């Protein structure tokens, strides 16, 4: 019903998913003003440059709906949004939610640590207690803790996503090592409560700068990495981040669904997952009216993988790779390539933070890059 009203008012629904809308109006002086709108059940987030256009929209809407206060955005879905139009800064953080989590689990006054997990953390299923010795209370608390952290991770605290993902694999039967790993996340949160993602006008992806590539504003860039055989059962962990305006807008840390036989193959897997999301976000950006002029650059530290995506080299040991993964090749070659891989030194690969437990110095360096802080 709400969606239908928006469409009647002249909004265009992107994706036909009934969630993100955009309305453009050409003014007399040829400049375009627009409203971007994203709905979350009964909450909405709108971005608009033109105050008169927005006031008209709100006036029209309050005729048909009961709108409560609709001022500037300060608080969205449990996260805090700070904006500074003059400097061109938007910041997302979840300090209050983090405090609530720490209070709930009675870790309010714990000792802070610098990283969310130990360096080279490897949690194994062999640490879980036997099924008949499972303590329901422990399991429930563990699940509640991970659920609380999961929400932090997917909204503004991507820096703990590797640690949370590791712990979340043992939701059904956590052992002592898993519980202490989960607690370590809280120790880390206690020391970094106010951390958030900061988007800045004119900020560029530092990894792109390091190879001397300059991009126009509103262009996406990405980086993808993998830790070969780093997870349980010799699976690899893939991690990637997609950046815009100096910080990441999408990220993932996941165990790969198949076992790969070489580091190149595991990198190839993570690049392909990253490329699929890049293409999706490119569509979103184009629908929002910000055309992507050049292919999206993906940082990659494995040369063989870059050759493989270009369609040359190492055929004998790569011919078994699933066709699905080869989709990334189609994105990378042709007349209008959507993604482009470039080589970056391993220690400057920000996506490293999503694939393994890093020591403090490297962790903080990558965190600065991806969070824009």
């Amino acid at each position: 019903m709400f969606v239908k009203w928006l469409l009647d008012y002249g909004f265009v629904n992107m994706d036909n998913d009934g969630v993100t809308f955009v309305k453009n109006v050409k003014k007399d002086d040829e400049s375009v003003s627009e409203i971007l709108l994203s709905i979350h059940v009964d909450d909405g987030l709108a971005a608009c440059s033109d105050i008169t256009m927005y006031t008209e929209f709100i006036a029209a809407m309050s005729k048909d709906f009961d709108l409560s206060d609709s001022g500037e955005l300060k608080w969205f879905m449990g996260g805090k949004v700070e904006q500074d139009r003059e400097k061109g800064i938007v910041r997302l953080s979840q300090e209050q939610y983090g405090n609530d989590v720490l209070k709930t689990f009675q870790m309010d006054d714990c000792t802070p640590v610098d990283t969310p997990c130990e360096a080279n953390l490897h949690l194994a299923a062999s640490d879980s207690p036997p099924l008949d010795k499972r303590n329901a209370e422990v399991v429930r608390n563990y699940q509640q803790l991970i659920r609380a952290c999961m929400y932090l991770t997917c909204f503004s605290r991507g820096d703990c996503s590797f640690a949370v993902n590791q712990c979340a694999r043992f939701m059904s039967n956590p052992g002592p090592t898993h519980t202490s790993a989960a607690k370590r996340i809280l120790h880390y949160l206690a020391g970094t409560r106010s951390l958030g993602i900061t988007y800045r006008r004119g900020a560029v992806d530092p990894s792109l700068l390091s190879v001397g590539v300059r991009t126009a504003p509103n262009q996406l860039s990405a980086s993808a990495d993998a830790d070969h055989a780093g997870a349980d059962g010799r699976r690899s962990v893939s991690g990637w981040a997609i950046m815009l305006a100096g910080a990441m807008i999408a990220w993932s840390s996941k165990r790969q669904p198949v076992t790969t036989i070489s580091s190149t193959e595991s990198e190839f897997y993570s690049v392909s997952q990253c490329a699929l999301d890049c293409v999706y976000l490119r569509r979103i950006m184009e629908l929002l009216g910000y055309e992507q002029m050049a292919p999206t650059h993906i940082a990659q530290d494995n040369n063989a993988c870059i050759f493989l995506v270009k369609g040359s080299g190492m055929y004998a040991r790569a011919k078994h790779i699933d066709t699905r993964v080869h989709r990334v090749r189609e994105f990378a070659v042709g007349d209008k390539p959507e993604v482009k891989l470039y080589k970056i030194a391993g220690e400057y690969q920000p996506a490293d933070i999503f694939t393994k437990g890093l020591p403090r110095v490297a962790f903080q360096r990558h965190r600065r890059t991806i969070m824009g802080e």
Partner: protein
Amino acid sequence: MPGVKIRRHESFITTGAAMMGMFWTAIACDEHGQQLTGMRPVLRSHYDIEGRSDEHLCVEACDKEIKKLLEMGTFSIVDENDIPPGHKCINCCMSFKIKKDCDGNVLEYRACCNANGRQQEVGSYGDTFATTSKFSCIRSICAIAAQEGLTLYQLDVKGAFLLAECKERVYINLPGQYRLPKGKVLQCHRLIYSLKPAAHG
């Protein structure tokens, strides 16, 4: 609703199933930020508010919610015997949320009427998904706003759930502390929380 009087008993009567309010997952804390309910994050039913120091505020919120639903024409009263065969009368309960601002100060008490959607039979309802936005879309809008100097606003449609019309026949009993005349039940004309298709509205 004209001509019909719904009465609330002053003491809580222990009927009605306690269910989870799916969309009410805030951590219940008192005004000092102390958690009240142990590990349970939500005040889920009228059993939970019994004996609390702020019980009267919760009850007040309950009344306000029921009044709002009635004013919106959500329900009409029908006879129990008029329910067509194949339709069940489902239970509902109230859940509570203490709304706080970003510094943890109490803003208001809210109550929400939840139907037990699990009692609805499969096939008696249509689409059930909620229009939730993707975090990556929200963040890209934020990033664009930073780059282009757009202002971010928030929209909050009050009772967005309760606006949608209920296309199916749904009959409910009000929670324990509210009583209808004997032999009468309510028919829903608009969706309420926790009915299966509610979030799609």
